[in-house]
């Protein structure tokens, strides 16, 4: 028998009649789709802008980076291209240096950029006066950021000592094309003309200078194709250990790296919210169908088949789901704008938020998959509703387990696939999935245990006893609510505790004995004079800049290494040399720092190097020091005894190995805060090439940035709590009749409205308290482990802050629970009894 088509009116009636549940279901879908499209879409938009404006952001078509003058082979190749009229070339040099007023009474660490004519090829350096950049920046002049003038109390026309020369401040830079590419600059910008480069006397072998060569491709047709062709040709001549050739499309700017990592983390939060909201979808749908049980039973009594009923409810789910998906897109779009506002310091100026068709299709597909996965179990259970239940509410046999297992396996496969697809890093994906699964499993176990104990407690207080009984009423979903809230709160509490501990360790209570002034770029012949100037005993650390070229003969693929999210061999390292262990170090492999029975050049490595690649004593590492290879054998592996801000080096050589290598000297001291400025002035006046870093000041700058970032993370973590709250609300709606019956019976038997309110409020209070406490315990353990063993810092539990976090959780759950129940509280017994003659 064919059952007559789709009953449109039935669909509409069911939707109208259960508008509360429908609304909660839609909100869950909005939450899941909104968060994942926000993060995924934002990431795509940022990457699109960075790519689209990459020429302007990098100020060139081809960008060549090096830590020293480029190799002769590459240089020849570039010059040939210039002579052939295929490219135009310009260069700039970037480094940090302390600049000071002509009176030498004030100084500031600055971000110096020495530029040749022609910079920038794309975009412009905008000056406050409105004049053209290269008209103003002539030898003898500087153009500075406003913050430099503010910090030195200087003005245009004043003299500024930069390195070994004095220059005149001619203008203020308002914007430059490659900021925020040059993000995380710890000092204000100074532009210096290339003509003053020699006079500055700061660019020496061993100094930490970034040498940048920019090329502009002069072809007028198929420019991108020609750019790639030229770049590929140059890559063949580059020395990969020292210099890198990128086009504007492939160049990984610092901001892109930072944003990649940050948005990657936000995507993880998005996946977590997607999953939690998925449980919300399942919970609300189960609650919705529970409400409809009587209706379903009646339909079956008059002959409707399971198929007929299931199809209609599937259509309802589809309609609600599509509403949720569409609104989710809209919400995700708004959230992207919110993200752009919160992260404005870090983003390109012309970031435009838009929704692409690919993004929309992906979101729809994702939304339908999530809804289907989480709707499967409740929809499947429709067949368990038998017509007989309208006459008799007997205990039906337990439902089959296989749909639950199948649903679990499919959900796990879906989320795993999603994580791997977005992360593109199998190992990290596995870690993430394992951590989330662990979080939910531990929440489940503890929630089950606590509820088991609670159910068996003998409680004297009547309202409290009734509240506990209410938690175990049929269809109450107390455990899923507690698990969801616990998991969500755990994430937020953990982020908070780790952030507070990092703040306490580095920012607020800067370690007493830690150095707070670092001096870099000290030349070998300046050591004695420097010590005299400081007038104190200091330890000097020689620093030789090098790359790791190969390990045990296996060449390091620099490009591949740089793609990794953790520390890797794609960067430059600071080598040093000495004969002894520091008192802050201990050996974990090898009997001594170096072996007397080995002829090879030896190197002792820090245990952190093992996180990048497994190595052991006896292995060989080849370094490249300004292009010159140096092969060394691992003689020992060190570890730090305790957390310290004292200098530490990944690679330590014997004196004889590196003594004659191009190097600078580094040292650090602990100075009284009031003396820092005068020490800086004294040192730089005598030794203009030495960069002085006030670490506590720098730490404050980073702290401010971290706080801005963590606000974003916390805001989106709160969305996961919203999913838990939605489940709570849907359960209240689902158990509405049972709650009304309870309230009516209490009133009939003589209880007042206050008593009824207290029972409901206590029930929500217990749910909030259990969730909050469980989450806090788990967060404390997790934060402790991460802080102690991950960051190797001492740990503080911040109990007072935790107390307030629990209090806020409790108030939120109670208030929301009571608001959702207020119509039940106001129900008169007689009204109810008239409506429900069956009861």
């Amino acid at each position, binding site marked *: 028998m064919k*059952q007559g088509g789709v009953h449109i009116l039935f669909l509409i009636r069911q939707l109208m009649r259960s508008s509360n549940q429908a609304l909660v279901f839609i909100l869950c879908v909005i939450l899941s789709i909104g968060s994942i499209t926000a993060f995924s879409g934002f990431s795509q938009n940022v990457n699109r802008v960075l790519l689209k404006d990459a020429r302007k952001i990098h100020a060139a078509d081809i960008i060549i980076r090096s830590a020293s003058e480029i190799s002769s082979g590459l240089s020849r190749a570039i010059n040939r291209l210039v002579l052939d009229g295929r490219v135009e070339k310009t260069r700039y040099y970037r480094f940090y240096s302390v600049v000071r007023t002509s009176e030498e009474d004030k100084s500031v660490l600055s971000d110096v950029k020495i530029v040749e004519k022609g910079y920038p090829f794309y975009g412009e350096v905008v000056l406050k006066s409105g004049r053209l950049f290269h008209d103003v920046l002539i030898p003898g002049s500087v153009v500075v950021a406003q913050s430099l003038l503010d910090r030195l109390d200087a003005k245009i026309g004043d003299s500024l000592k930069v390195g070994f020369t004095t220059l005149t401040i001619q203008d203020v830079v308002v914007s430059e094309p490659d900021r925020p590419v040059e993000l995380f600059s710890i000092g204000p910008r100074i532009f210096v003309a290339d003509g003053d480069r020699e006079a500055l006397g700061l660019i020496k072998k061993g100094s930490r200078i970034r040498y940048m060569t920019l090329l502009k491709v002069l072809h007028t047709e198929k420019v991108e194709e020609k750019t790639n062709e030229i770049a590929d040709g140059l890559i063949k001549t580059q020395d990969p250990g020292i210099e890198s050739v990128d086009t504007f499309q492939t160049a990984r700017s610092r901001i892109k790296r930072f944003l990649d990592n940050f948005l990657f983390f936000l995507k993880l939060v998005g996946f977590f919210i997607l999953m939690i909201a998925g449980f919300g979808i399942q919970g609300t749908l189960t609650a919705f169908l529970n409400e409809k049980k*009587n209706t379903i039973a009646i339909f079956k009594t008059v002959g409707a088949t*399971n198929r007929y009923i299931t199809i209609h409810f599937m259509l309802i789910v589809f309609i609600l789901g599509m509403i949720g998906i569409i609104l989710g897109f809209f919400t995700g779009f708004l959230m992207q704008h919110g993200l752009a506002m919160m992260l404005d310091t870090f983003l390109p100026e012309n970031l435009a938020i838009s929704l692409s068709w690919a993004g929309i299709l992906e979101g729809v597909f994702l939304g339908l998959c999530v809804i289907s996965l989480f709707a499967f179990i409740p929809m499947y259970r429709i067949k368990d509703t038998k017509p007989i239940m309208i*006459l008799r509410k007997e205990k039906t046999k337990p439902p089959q387990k296989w749909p639950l297992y199948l649903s679990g396996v499919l959900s796990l496969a879906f989320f795993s696939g999603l994580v791997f697809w977005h992360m593109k890093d199998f190992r990290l994906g596995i870690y993430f999935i394992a951590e989330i699964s662990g979080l939910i499993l531990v929440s489940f176990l503890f929630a089950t245990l606590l509820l088991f104990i609670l159910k068996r407690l003998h409680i004297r207080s009547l309202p409290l006893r009734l509240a506990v009984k209410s938690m175990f009423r049929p269809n109450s979903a107390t455990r899923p609510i507690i698990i969801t809230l616990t998991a969500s709160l755990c994430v937020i509490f953990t982020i908070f505790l780790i952030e507070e501990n990092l703040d306490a360790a580095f920012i607020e209570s800067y370690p007493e004995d830690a150095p707070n002034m670092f001096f870099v770029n000290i030349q070998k012949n300046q050591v004695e004079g420097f010590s005299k100037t400081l007038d104190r005993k200091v330890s000097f650390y020689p620093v030789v800049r090098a790359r790791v070229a190969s390990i045990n003969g296996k060449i390091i693929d620099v490009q591949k290494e740089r793609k990794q999210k953790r520390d890797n061999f794609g960067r430059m390292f600071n080598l040093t040399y000495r004969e002894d262990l520091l008192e802050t170090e201990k050996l974990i492999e090898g009997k001594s720092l170096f072996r007397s029975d080995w002829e090879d050049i030896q190197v002792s490595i820090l245990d952190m190097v093992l996180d990048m690649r497994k190595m052991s004593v006896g292995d060989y590492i080849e370094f490249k020091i300004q292009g010159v290879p140096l092969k060394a054998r691992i003689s020992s592996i060190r570890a730090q005894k305790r957390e310290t801000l004292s200098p530490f080096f990944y690679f330590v050589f014997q004196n004889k190995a590196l003594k004659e290598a191009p190097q600078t000297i580094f040292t650090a001291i602990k100075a009284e805060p009031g003396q820092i400025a005068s020490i800086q002035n004294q040192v730089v006046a005598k030794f203009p090439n030495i960069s002085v870093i006030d670490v506590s000041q720098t730490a404050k700058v980073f702290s401010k940035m971290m706080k801005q970032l963590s606000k974003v993370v916390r805001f989106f973590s709160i969305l996961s709590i919203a999913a838990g709250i939605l489940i709570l609300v849907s359960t209240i709606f689902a158990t509405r009749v049972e709650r009304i019956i309870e309230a009516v019976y209490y009133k009939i038997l003589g209880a007042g409205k206050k008593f009824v309110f207290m029972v409901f409020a206590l029930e929500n209070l217990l749910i909030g308290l259990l969730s909050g406490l469980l989450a806090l315990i788990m967060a404390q353990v997790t934060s402790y482990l991460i802080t102690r063993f991950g960051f190797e810092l001492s740990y503080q539990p911040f109990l007072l802050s935790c107390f307030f976090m629990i209090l806020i959780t409790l108030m939120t759950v109670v208030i929301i629970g009571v608001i959702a129940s207020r119509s039940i509280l106001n129900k008169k017994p007689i009204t109810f009894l008239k409506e429900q003659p069956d009861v």
Partner: protein
Amino acid sequence: MAILEAKHISKTYTLGNRELKVLDGLSLSVENGEFLVITGSSGSGKTTLLTLLSGLDHPTTGNVILDSQDITHATEEELAPLRNRYIGFVFQSFHLVPSMTALENIMFPAELLGNPDAAEHARELLKSVQLEQRADNLPSQLSGGEKQRVALCRAMINRPKLLFADEPTGNLDSENGKAILSQLIDLKSRQGATLILVTHNPDISRAADRVLTINDGQWAA
């Protein structure tokens, strides 16, 4: 010819550790067009018997044959079309769908059958029970008697061969009860249906073709 047969049916419920035998080896044969009343005291098993005879539940032992079809072990999918086409139910508690109007409640089984004239037939039935002006009211807006008349119409819309009524006047006052019974019998006669009615009301029993009494799960002597 028997339209309904029950052969030695028993029904036992398990409640915790206890087993409760509600019906014990009952047999029954109902003729086509017959009006049968099953009566008995509260808890005697009459409603249970009705649920077994109508296919709402399965007997623990024995067989139920409905219009030559053994429905004893029929699945829900097999029973659904039977309920839709051949059986009508009238319950003590009406069991109307709260979100459907009176007219929609009546139409629903006919729509399931794919009847294009469902609305028209429903209106006719409403008219026959003097409720046409209440067609657009929800169950919550109807009195008990009105709800039961709507339930009656719903049971009759597909012209079922069998009508099962479980205490149809149980929640009504005597005047409404009489009216319902009268309309039930009238509709039954007009459509030539077989009516099996469970009640403990002796007045209703007097109108029946046959009365059977259950006592402790068995036919009373």
